[in-house]
C-alpha cells in the first residue's frame, strides 16, 4: 500500500453487515428494486448470528394462550423500565408476523404434531403480565441462528442483492449538513480503498463483546459500527449496559448453557461450598443470570475463587449419573473437554461470568432511523440489530428478544430506506471535497508509525481493564480509576504500529483498525458506567445497594433516563425514556422481581 488512492462506487443504498439484521434489511431493499450493496467482513453465513441457539420469541400462542401485550410487559420489565415502550410495543406486535415471514422464507422451525411452529419455555417469558411461564420461543433445534441466516441469505440471492464479501467498512461519510452519504471501505484481498456513495446507509454490524477479556462473543465482534458512528459525531446510547452470562469457561469464554444448572449442576467455591444457598436460598443455582453472576464475583473478590490465581469458581456435575450427562448434556461435555481440558463426568468445570450481549448502541427510533440527541433524525443514516439501540432491551435484554430485534428492525429500517429513496431526489447528493481525508490520514498514520504500541498487547490491556474495572459488579473507585486507565490506553491505540505494510490480506492492518473501534466502545462504556450512580438491570454498583427507598438500588427519580456518550470532548448528556407505548397504556414502574 504505497500510495493511497480512492475510487467511488454509487448505489441507492449500502448496508454494512450481513448478519441477521443486515440480511433482513437487504431483502426489503432488493425486492423494492433499489441498487443495494451489502458489505461484510466475512461471508454472510459466517456472521455471528450463527451462534444463537436458544430461539426467537413471538406470541404465536401455538402451544398455549399468549398475547403480544404480555410479551411487551415481560420485555419492559426485563429492561428494568429503561426500554422505550413505543419501540417495545412495535416489536412485540410485529413478532408473530416476523416469524411467520421467516417461515415463508424457508426457515426450518421445529413443529408440533399438528404441524404448527413448536414453542418452548425460556427465562422471563410469562403469561398474563408476569403470572406464570409461557412457551414463546421458536427454534430450529439448537441451530436457530444458523438456520435463520441461511433462510435470509437464500432470499437475498433470489432478490439479486450485491454482496461485497471480506470488505471492511472504515468510516462513515458525513457532510457539513450532517447528512450521511455512504461509507469508505477496504477490500481485504487487494487493499483497495473504495467509497460507497449512497442515498442511504444502514449499519447492521453486530455487537462489540470483545471489549471484555472474558466474552462469549466471537473475535469478529469489535464494534466497528459503533466506532464509525462515534467518529462521525453520532452519540452512543446506554453503553453502560452489558449482559453477562454466569457460566463462560474460564480463560476461553465459551458459553456453558443454563441447561447445565437446570439438570442439577452446582456452583462451588474454593471451600467446596455450594455458595448459591447463601445468596438465593430458594432458587439457589437456578436464580436469574444477574444474581448468579454477582454471587460468583463476590466469592472471587472475597478470596474464595479457585485455581492458582483464585479467579474462577467451579460448576460441578460430577454427582450426576454419567449416563444422564451423556444423554442430556453431550454438547457441554464436548465443550468442557475441548476448552477447559477436563471431563465434567470426572471433574468440575472452571467458570466465570462472561460478557454476552450489548444492550446499548447507535440510537434509533423504531423505524430504524438514527436519531440525534434532540430527537431529530440523521438524514441518510439507519441502524438495526445488536449495534443499534431502539431501545427495546433497555438495561437488560430478555433471552430470544435479540433475534426478534434483528427481524423486526432489520425490516423496518429497510422499509424506511425504501420510502426515503423513493421520495427523495434521483441524483446522489455530492460528496464533500475532503470526504476521504480523515480515513486516508488514519491509514497513512498506521503505515508510517514508528516506535508505537503493539496491537495485540494494547487490545489485551483494554480487555483486562474493562473486565477488572467495569465487569458484572461495579465499584465507585474502580470505575473512576478505570476511566483514567482507558484514556491512557486510548493514547496507545492512536499510536499502534504494525510490522506488515503489504496491501493484500494485511490482517495486521485490519486488526489495528478494529482496535480503533474497540477503544470507542470501551471508553463510552466506562465513562457512561462511572456516571450512572444507581443500579439498574445489568449495571450494578456496590454503592447503590438494595434499600427500602430504592429497591434493587434503582433510582427512578434521578436515573430513569438514557445515557448519551459524545466522543467529542468525552462528554455525556441524557434523554428521557419513552414511557408512552403506541396504543396501550404505559406499563407502570414497578420493582423488578421474579
Amino acid at each position, binding site marked *: 500500500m504505497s500510495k493511497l488512492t480512492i475510487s467511488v462506487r454509487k448505489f441507492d443504498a449500502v448496508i454494512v453487515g450481513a448478519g441477521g439484521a443486515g440480511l433482513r434489511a437487504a431483502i426489503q431493499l432488493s425486492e423494492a428494486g433499489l441498487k443495494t450493496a451489502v458489505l461484510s467482513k466475512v461471508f454472510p453465513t459466517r456472521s*455471528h448470528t450463527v451462534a444463537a441457539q436458544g430461539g426467537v420469541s413471538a406470541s404465536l400462542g401455538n402451544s398455549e394462550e399468549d398475547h403480544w401485550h404480555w410479551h411487551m410487559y415481560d420485555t419492559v420489565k426485563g429492561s428494568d423500565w429503561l426500554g422505550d415502550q413505543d419501540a417495545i410495543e412495535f416489536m412485540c406486535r410485529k413478532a408473530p408476523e416476523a416469524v411467520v415471514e421467516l417461515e415463508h422464507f424457508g426457515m426450518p422451525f421445529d413443529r408440533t404434531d399438528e404441524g404448527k411452529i413448536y414453542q418452548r419455555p425460556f427465562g422471563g417469558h410469562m403469561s398474563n403480565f408476569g403470572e406464570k411461564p409461557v412457551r414463546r420461543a421458536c427454534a430450529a433445534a439448537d441451530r436457530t441462528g444458523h438456520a435463520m441466516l441461511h433462510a435470509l441469505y437464500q432470499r437475498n440471492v433470489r432478490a439479486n442483492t450485491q454482496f461485497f464479501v471480506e470488505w471492511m467498512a472504515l468510516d462513515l461519510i458525513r457532510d457539513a449538513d450532517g447528512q450521511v452519504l455512504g461509507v469508505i471501505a477496504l477490500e481485504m484481498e487487494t487493499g483497495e480503498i473504495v467509497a460507497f456513495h449512497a442515498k442511504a446507509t444502514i449499519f447492521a454490524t453486530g455487537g462489540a463483546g470483545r471489549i471484555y477479556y472474558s466474552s462469549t462473543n466471537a473475535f469478529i465482534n469489535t464494534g466497528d459500527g459503533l466506532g464509525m458512528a462515534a467518529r462521525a459525531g453520532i452519540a452512543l446510547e446506554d453503553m453502560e449496559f452489558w449482559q453477562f452470562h454466569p457460566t463462560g469457561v474460564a480463560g476461553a469464554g465459551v458459553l456453558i448453557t443454563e441447561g447445565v444448572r437446570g439438570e442439577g449442576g452446582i456452583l462451588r467455591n474454593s471451600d467446596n461450598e455450594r455458595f448459591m444457598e447463601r445468596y438465593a436460598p430458594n432458587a439457589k443455582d437456578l436464580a436469574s443470570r444477574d444474581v448468579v453472576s454477582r454471587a460468583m464475583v463476590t466469592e472471587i473478590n472475597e478470596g474464595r475463587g479457585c485455581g492458582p490465581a483464585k479467579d474462577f469458581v467451579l460448576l460441578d456435575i460430577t454427582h450426576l449419573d454419567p449416563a444422564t450427562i451423556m444423554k442430556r448434556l453431550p454438547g457441554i461435555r464436548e465443550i468442557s473437554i475441548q476448552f477447559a481440558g477436563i471431563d465434567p463426568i470426572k471433574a468440575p468445570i472452571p467458570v466465570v461470568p462472561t460478557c454476552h450481549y450489548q444492550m446499548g448502541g447507535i440510537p434509533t427510533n423504531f423505524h430504524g432511523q438514527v436519531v440525534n440527541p434532540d430527537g431529530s433524525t440523521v438524514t441518510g443514516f439507519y441502524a438495526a440489530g445488536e449495534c443499534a439501540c431502539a431501545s427495546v432491551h433497555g438495561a437488560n435484554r430478555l433471552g430470544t428478544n435479540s433475534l426478534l430485534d434483528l427481524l423486526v428492525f432489520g425490516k423496518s429500517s429497510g422499509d424506511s430506506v425504501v420510502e426515503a429513496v423513493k421520495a427523495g431526489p434521483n441524483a446522489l447528493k455530492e460528496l464533500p471535497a475532503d470526504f476521504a481525508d480523515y480515513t486516508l490520514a488514519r491509514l497513512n498514520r498506521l503505515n508510517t508509525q514508528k516506535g508505537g504500541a503493539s496491537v495485540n498487547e494494547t487490545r489485551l490491556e483494554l480487555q483486562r481493564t474493562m473486565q477488572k474495572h467495569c465487569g458484572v459488579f461495579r465499584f465507585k473507585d474502580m470505575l473512576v480509576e478505570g476511566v483514567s486507565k482507558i484514556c491512557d490506553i486510548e493514547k496507545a491505540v492512536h499510536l499502534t504500529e504494525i510490522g506488515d505494510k503489504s496491501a493484500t490480506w494485511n490482517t495486521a492492518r485490519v486488526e489495528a483498525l478494529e482496535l480503533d473501534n474497540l477503544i470507542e466502545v470501551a471508553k463510552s462504556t466506562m465513562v457512561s458506567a462511572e456516571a450512572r450512580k444507581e443500579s439498574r438491570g445489568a449495571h450494578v454498583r456496590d454503592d447503590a445497594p438494595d434499600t427500602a427507598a430504592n429497591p434493587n438500588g434503582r433510582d427512578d427519580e434521578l436515573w430513569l433516563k438514557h445515557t448519551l456518550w459524545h466522543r467529542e470532548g468525552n462528554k455525556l448528556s441524557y434523554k428521557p425514556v419513552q414511557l408512552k407505548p403506541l396504543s396501550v397504556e404505559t406499563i407502570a414502574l414497578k420493582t423488578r422481581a421474579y
Partner: protein
Amino acid sequence: MISSAELNRLRWRCTRRAMLEMDLLLGGFLERQFHDLTPAQAVAFIQLADMEDLELWPLITGKRECENSLQAEVVNMLRDVRVK
C-alpha cells in the same frame, strides 16, 4: 510453500469465524501447529477451514465421520489443540 498473503487470508478465515469455539480452535492451531504440517495435511486443513462452523464441529466431536483418512488425521490434531 504458502505465500504470506495466502497465510494472512487463512489467518483471517481461521480467526473471524461465526463461533468463538472455532476462532479458538482454528486460530490456535494455525498459530502453533500449522507450520509443522505436511503439504497434504496443509491442504486438508485449508479445506476444513473453508467449512461452516456447524459442519466442522460435528467432525471434531466425532458426531460425524471424516471423509478420508487425511482429513481424520488433521481433525485429530485439532482435537488436541489446548486453548489454555
